[in-house]
């Protein structure tokens, strides 16, 4: 049966690539403006800055919805800033709290070139992620967290993926990571 994928509207522009990626994988993908029970997988896309995304979620009460999905162990795929909002806060917008589900903070990365733009190999022991080379676009990141399942090295080491309950979250953009990225998404469905 076709999976129904709901992609949260974070008011942050382009979600087309995310929609197309799930469509390629045989899903029915739609944009979500409000909480619903009519989907199988919740996706938090990776465009925009931390504070703006949190404000957009709170405005639509989607922050509670994401929490409910998470604590009831339903499947969530979160990308880039979509992963970062699960943490306490971010150097990007220090006055706007995140969902605070994980205790760590998102910090500005001290990489040789900034922001990080490009492909990095994942260091991971999971079947899902090991040996994959994927595309990153970020100036901020989570240095370490107990929920990490992959990390990358660009002088600074940072978290590339986390897994907890039904959540699979990626600092990279699987929808922009060629074949490797689509394989990762396919296995998350």
């Amino acid at each position: 049966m076709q999976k129904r994928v709901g992609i949260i509207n974070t008011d942050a522009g382009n979600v087309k690539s995310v929609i197309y990626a799930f469509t390629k994988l045989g899903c029915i993908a739609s944009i979500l403006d409000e909480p619903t029970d009519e989907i199988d997988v919740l996706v938090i896309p990776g465009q925009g800055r931390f504070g703006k995304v949190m404000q957009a979620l709170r405005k639509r009460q989607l922050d509670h919805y994401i929490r409910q999905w998470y604590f009831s162990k339903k499947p969530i795929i979160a990308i880039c800033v979509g992963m970062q909002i699960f943490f306490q806060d971010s150097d990007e917008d220090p006055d706007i709290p995140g969902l605070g589900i994980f205790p760590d903070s998102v910090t500005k990365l001290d990489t040789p070139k900034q922001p990080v733009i490009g492909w990095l190999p994942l260091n991971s022991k999971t079947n899902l992620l090991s040996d994959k080379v994927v595309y990153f676009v970020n100036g901020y990141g989570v240095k370490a967290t107990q929920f990490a399942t992959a990390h990358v090295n660009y002088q600074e080491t940072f978290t590339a993926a986390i897994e907890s309950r039904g959540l699979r979250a990626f600092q990279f953009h699987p929808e922009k990571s060629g074949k490797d990225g689509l394989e990762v998404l396919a296995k998350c469905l």
Partner: protein
Amino acid sequence: MSIIINSELKSRIIVCLDIANGRVVKGVNFENIKDMGEPIELACQYEQQGADEIVFLDITATQEKRSAALNMVNKVAENLSIPFTVGGGLNNLSDVNQYLNAGADKVALNTAAIKSPELINQIADSFGSQSLCVAVDSKKDSNGVDTVFSNGAREVTRLQTLNWLQEVESRGAGEILLTSIDRDGTNSGFDNELLSRASKNNRVQLIASGGASTPSHFLTAFQAGADAVLAAGMFHRKEYEVSEVKAYLSKNSINIRK
């Protein structure tokens, strides 16, 4: 060559598609334009060959062709699963918004950034630095000073290249596409001396452009400090596939995505 310890970031190969009237074209020193094929078809071929990114330039030369260009960007987003940048004819925030919403990952600004540098700040604030690549066309003046040119490399400006690169970075550009007009389309290799100085001067990533015709040109550009290398003609003319260039670079210890 600068050595970065514990960096696993791949050196990128970017294929550039210059667009005119919905077709891919190629010229020498921005002149003698030839038809090279259909944009989406070519972009998909390059993704298959291992290109890390695609850049579409001059996609939007005129307002009346805007909807056709946006439609093309949308189709590109639907078909590619690697990142792509669009540039040419974007003059304000609303243009940028349209292209990002149509599915582009980044926009490239050139003359618009020279005319109104604050546009760089506005785009960085509204959409984030990562969505903005500033393209700089550089040529040596009669005294050998690297100087910025505008309007498709036709007009000289008062800006010195290295100063301008620092300014666009401090205003919020996420990366810089540096084209040597002296080298563009000449097949004589990149201006590695300029690349080397620029990469030491800037903390955003530097994409080298203009002059590549052999895999060894890519190697020397990376060794000079380029983070990514952009080429067009040698791929469109099918002299090399992206995968061949990557195999050569890999043999020569450049860390590329296989």
